[in-house]
């Protein structure tokens, strides 16, 4: 049984669906990457899991539970954590307070988990009292991811985590994603930096114009001529 499945999703914001019959799945322990040209609907696919827009056809299944069109605040309690591309930290709260908010829906003591996150992200431990808005872009991404991890989610959804970051930070982010996955969290990641993303992916999907176009393992897609032609030429 997959951790997360999207089955034939049509989804959008109003009358015009952006996604048409999109299907994908994430299995235990995997890093699954979704790549595609601008406007392909990659971010929309993530948002449809998280209930941020309307699914008019198809299902989203978490484990054995249908979570189609469940509002975001309830999806969170089911163990799905979503890190949006922008506006993903509370800029006026400190790093630690951001992480604490990440644990908002937890009923139990989150302090051990906080210590674990700080161990995973030593930079953040150092800056725990600083307002999150004063951190660099890359560090802010770390806060956003750490915040999402406070709930020990069943799956982590990442929306273009390296967008707008310098090359140095991009490498760090991908490394962090790998580490998070190594600690046991399956990841569904949308990325613009196709080459580097495929480098850490177990499997990947290529979406074009809101539809599935290609699918395969990371290495297989990296080697694929057409995929290479579409995005890997000229990109870092």
């Amino acid at each position, binding site marked *: 049984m997959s951790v997360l499945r999207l089955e034939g999703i049509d989804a959008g914001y109003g009358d015009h669906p952006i996604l048409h019959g999109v299907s994908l799945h994430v299995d235990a322990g995997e890093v699954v990457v979704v790549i595609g040209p601008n406007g392909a609907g990659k971010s929309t696919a993530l948002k449809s899991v998280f209930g941020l827009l309307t699914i008019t056809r198809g299902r989203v299944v978490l484990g054995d539970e249908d979570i189609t069109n469940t509002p975001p605040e309830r999806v969170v309690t089911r163990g799905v954590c979503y890190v949006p591309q922008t506006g993903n930290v509370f800029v006026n709260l400190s790093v630690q*307070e951001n992480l604490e908010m990440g644990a908002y829906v937890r009923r139990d003591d989150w302090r051990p988990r906080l210590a674990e996150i700080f161990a995973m992200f030593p930079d953040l431990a150092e800056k725990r009292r600083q307002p999150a808005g004063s951190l660099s872009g890359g560090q802010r991404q770390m806060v956003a991811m750490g915040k999402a991890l406070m709930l020990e989610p069943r799956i982590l959804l990442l929306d273009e985590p390296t967008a707008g970051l310098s090359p140095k930070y991009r490498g760090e982010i991908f490394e962090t994603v790998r580490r998070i996955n190594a600690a046991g969290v399956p990841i569904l990641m949308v990325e613009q930096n196709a080459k580097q993303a495929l480098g850490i992916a177990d499997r990947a999907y290529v979406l074009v114009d809101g539809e599935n176009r290609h699918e395969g393992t990371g290495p297989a897609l990296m080697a694929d001529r057409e995929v290479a032609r579409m995005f890997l030429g000229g990109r870092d």
Partner: protein
Amino acid sequence: MWELFNFYLIPGIVLGCIYALGALGISLTFGILRFSNFAHGEMMMLGAYFTFTIVGLTGWHPLAAALPAMVLCAIVALGLDRAFFKPFRQAPTIMLVIASFGLMLMIRSAVQFFWGVSPRPLMPGIQRPQAFLDGALLIAPKHIWIIGTTLLVMLAVHLLLTRTRTGKAMRAVSDSPELARLTGIDVEAVIRATWVVGAVTAVAAGVMLAMDTQVETLMGFKMLLPMFAAAILGGIGRPFGAVAGGLVIGVVEEMSAYPFIGTVPLLNPAYKSGIAFGIMVLMLIWRPSGLFKGRVF
């Protein structure tokens, strides 16, 4: 020099405390609900009237009577939110402003209906000032109460916002309601908490104003402009900036009546309420984000 201190600066600080507490509530409401609540002044007045009645029934000190009044006003605030503001959660902000405008008139007319319009004293009798520093410094006991209560309420709000889960969630929602939702924060619960804190600070401000002057039905409306000016001066969405703004406006207002030049007040006292307006317009021209860089939108 002591004359300036005793009869202008101290009253200015007292007035500033009242403005500060009122502006604190407005700033919190603005940050989290994202609209200017025109009915906030009337909530202050309602709290003062409840307190007046409780004092009449029990004989307690106004500050003690204010506590049940706070509970009553919190309940009223939650009820008003449910009836008149909640329907507009997804609507353009201006609908909330219009609704609050209507509520302002409704609350005031309800109070006028039940209590009538004649002003009443909350603390009857003239208070003799206490002398300090060998009689040089004179402060009326009620002014000491007011300044002390303000500090206490400030501290309580500060602790709430920085040490409690709810308070941090309030700051989170104020920062970004969308992200708060994504994080699983119960935004409706935060909104309810905001109304309660707003009501409590409003009642405190109203009771203190009533202690300093009297209970009357236009007291809330008269506060509205200075409180909004204070919130803008301090920076919208920065609650403690609003506090600073309130103090500045209060002090400037009282000091403007001092005869700095010659024997005539610097500014005709009838225009005192114009000072808050003037400060506000200046801020809007020069630096709309306020002294402490709040949001501008």
